[in-house]
């Protein structure tokens, strides 16, 4: 991988953006890089002395720009790519991710990387799926489940996701089902444990399908309570918390190892904003060394091992489910 970036700007200093800035703090002290952000709130950040505060009129131009704003991020990404910046997006909105994927050729033409979906799901889910898939001879199913939310924008997005149309890949075709259907009890790493998870309008399936083109089945579910499902089609009745509690991710990869059909499971449990901050920071550090064009977590060309090592050194503990019986029924 190339050296770390000389300058990084973080746009959006909410629950996620402030975590990205904290994670990138050592860049300033150890490598003399420039770290900048708009609207830095000292109480939230805690490391303002190391961050250059930009005013509204100032350009965000830097070697790498991390977008940690609410969706949509596509217009800002387009503008930054044209300025020659590597862009790391944390969006998980389906429409936004579709449009970000369309910017791949622009990024390639400008010789920069556009990381679409540097969050928990999409993001860490793709990295874990790729990591697990390397232990198998052939992968044919990827199933992701997520629990929890980051900041208020993330909570609103998840509320909308439960009331929309879920996207899944099933035997060579897109499967559109009402979000909130397809209940499945998923075991997350402790302390979260078992949670009922349902289909939701999340963009992860879209990106996983691009990263794992040969996989026959992809599903993405999120945990929800009965109240969440009943109120999903109504406006949020109370404003979301500044930050959600402990979140979790579970990635299950099924495939073949020799003659055996095997299921491998990995995950994490940490505050969603902390995990997203770590993933976005890891991609920001790696961005100058990535291939120009669209970069998706889980893509075989992405340095998955190095990114996962970086993420785990940033305080996100990664787990795998180890049982005596890994073999699954065909």
């Amino acid at each position, binding site marked *: 991988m190339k050296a770390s970036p000389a300058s990084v700007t973080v746009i959006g200093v909410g629950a996620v953006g402030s975590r990205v800035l904290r994670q990138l703090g050592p860049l300033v002290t150890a490598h003399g890089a420039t770290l900048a952000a708009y609207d830095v709130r000292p109480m939230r950040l805690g490391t303002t002395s190391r961050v250059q505060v930009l005013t509204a009129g100032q350009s965000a131009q830097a070697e790498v720009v991390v977008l940690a704003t609410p969706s949509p991020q596509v217009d800002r990404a387009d503008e930054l790519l044209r300025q020659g910046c590597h862009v790391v997006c944390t969006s998980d909105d389906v429409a936004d991710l579709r449009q970000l994927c369309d910017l791949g050729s622009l990024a390639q033409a400008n010789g920069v990387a556009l990381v679409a979906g540097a969050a928990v799901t999409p993001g860490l889910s793709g990295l874990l799926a790729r990591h697990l898939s390397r232990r198998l001879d052939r992968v044919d199913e990827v199933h992701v489940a997520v629990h929890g939310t980051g900041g208020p924008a993330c909570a609103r997005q998840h509320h909308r996701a439960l009331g929309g149309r879920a996207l899944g890949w099933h035997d060579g075709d897109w499967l559109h089902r009402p979000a909130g259907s397809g209940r*499945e*009890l998923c075991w997350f790493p402790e302390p979260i444990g078992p949670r*009922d998870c349902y289909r939701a309008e999340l963009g992860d399936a879209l990106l996983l399908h691009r990263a794992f083109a040969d996989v026959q089945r992809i599903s993405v579910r999120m945990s929800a309570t*009965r109240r969440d*499902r009943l109120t999903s089609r109504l406006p949020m009745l109370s404003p979301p918390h500044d930050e959600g509690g402990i979140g979790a991710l579970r990635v299950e990869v099924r495939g073949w190892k020799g003659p055996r059909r095997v299921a491998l499971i990995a995950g994490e449990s940490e505050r969603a904003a902390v995990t997203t901050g770590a993933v976005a920071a890891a991609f920001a550090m790696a961005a100058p060394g990535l291939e120009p064009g669209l970069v998706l977590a889980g893509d075989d060309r992405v340095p998955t091992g190095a990114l*996962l090592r970086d993420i785990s050194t940033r305080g996100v503990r990664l*787990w795998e*489910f180890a*049982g005596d019986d890994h073999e699954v029924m065909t």
Partner: protein
Amino acid sequence: MALTLAGTIAAALRVRGRGGVPPRQGGWRQLDVSS
């Protein structure tokens, strides 16, 4: 009346859902990403 009844049953089924199957053995261990 019939529509109301059908809607009520569908809503009850949607909220209740079906049960899952708990894992019978195994546990979580730290993922090795060193290689």
